[in-house]
């Protein structure tokens, strides 16, 4: 579903909404942004949640602003100034510092016997981490 960029307008807070009749997302906003973001539309949300669809991307704009670029028309709009930390989408993270991931170097130790390794899904005790989808509780 390709958005019609010509129908999009920009609120004075920098949030983007679409000029259609669809109901607004009920985002939790702080008071400074409430009046500005309530009319963000469902298509906007669709695009925010599908970063792989190639229709937009984020880039650092000048002066600390972040810009959302709509690939279909090439238009660029500022969407977040860091004033909306509670919005329920990617904007939530714009005030966070960038982080680095890491993977500790594995050592050859605590190797299970084949039968146990087969039933555990790994022969390495250190990698036998049963994620049960219940906050680590059995």
């Amino acid at each position, binding site marked *: 579903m390709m958005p019609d960029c010509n129908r999009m307008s920009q609120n004075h807070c920098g949030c983007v909404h679409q000029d259609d009749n669809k109901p607004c997302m009920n985002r939790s906003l702080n008071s400074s942004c409430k009046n500005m973001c309530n009319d963000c539309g469902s298509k906007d949300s669709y695009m925010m949640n599908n970063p792989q669809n190639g229709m937009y991307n984020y880039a650092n704009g000048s002066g600390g602003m972040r810009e959302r670029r709509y690939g279909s028309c090439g238009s660029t709009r500022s969407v977040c100034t860091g004033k909306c930390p509670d919005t329920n989408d990617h904007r939530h993270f714009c005030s966070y510092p960038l982080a680095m991931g890491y993977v500790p170097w*594995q050592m*050859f130790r605590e*190797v299970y016997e*084949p*039968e146990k*390794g*087969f039933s555990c899904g*790994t*022969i*390495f005790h250190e990698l036998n981490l049963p994620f049960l989808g219940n906050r680590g509780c059995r």
Partner: protein
Amino acid sequence: MMTNSMDSCKMCRHIQILGFTLDDLTLFLDTHPCDQDAQKCYFHYLKAYNEALQEYAKSFGPMNLSTAAESGKYWEWVCTPFPWELGGGC
């Protein structure tokens, strides 16, 4: 035939377990190619794996082409049942 199926199933599982162990060791060695303990462990289980495959082939026919024996009479790979055709819930 039931005994054969059970034996086949048991041997098949043993081969699967050893195969899994080798796969996991391979993953480790891919990123730790100089780890001699891991290599030693890999070749220990590789030997057991190949022996289990040979033993299976002698009793039930080859499980893979590398254990297809040259009988001179027929191409036994296609004439012997596959592990899942022996029954026994393998």
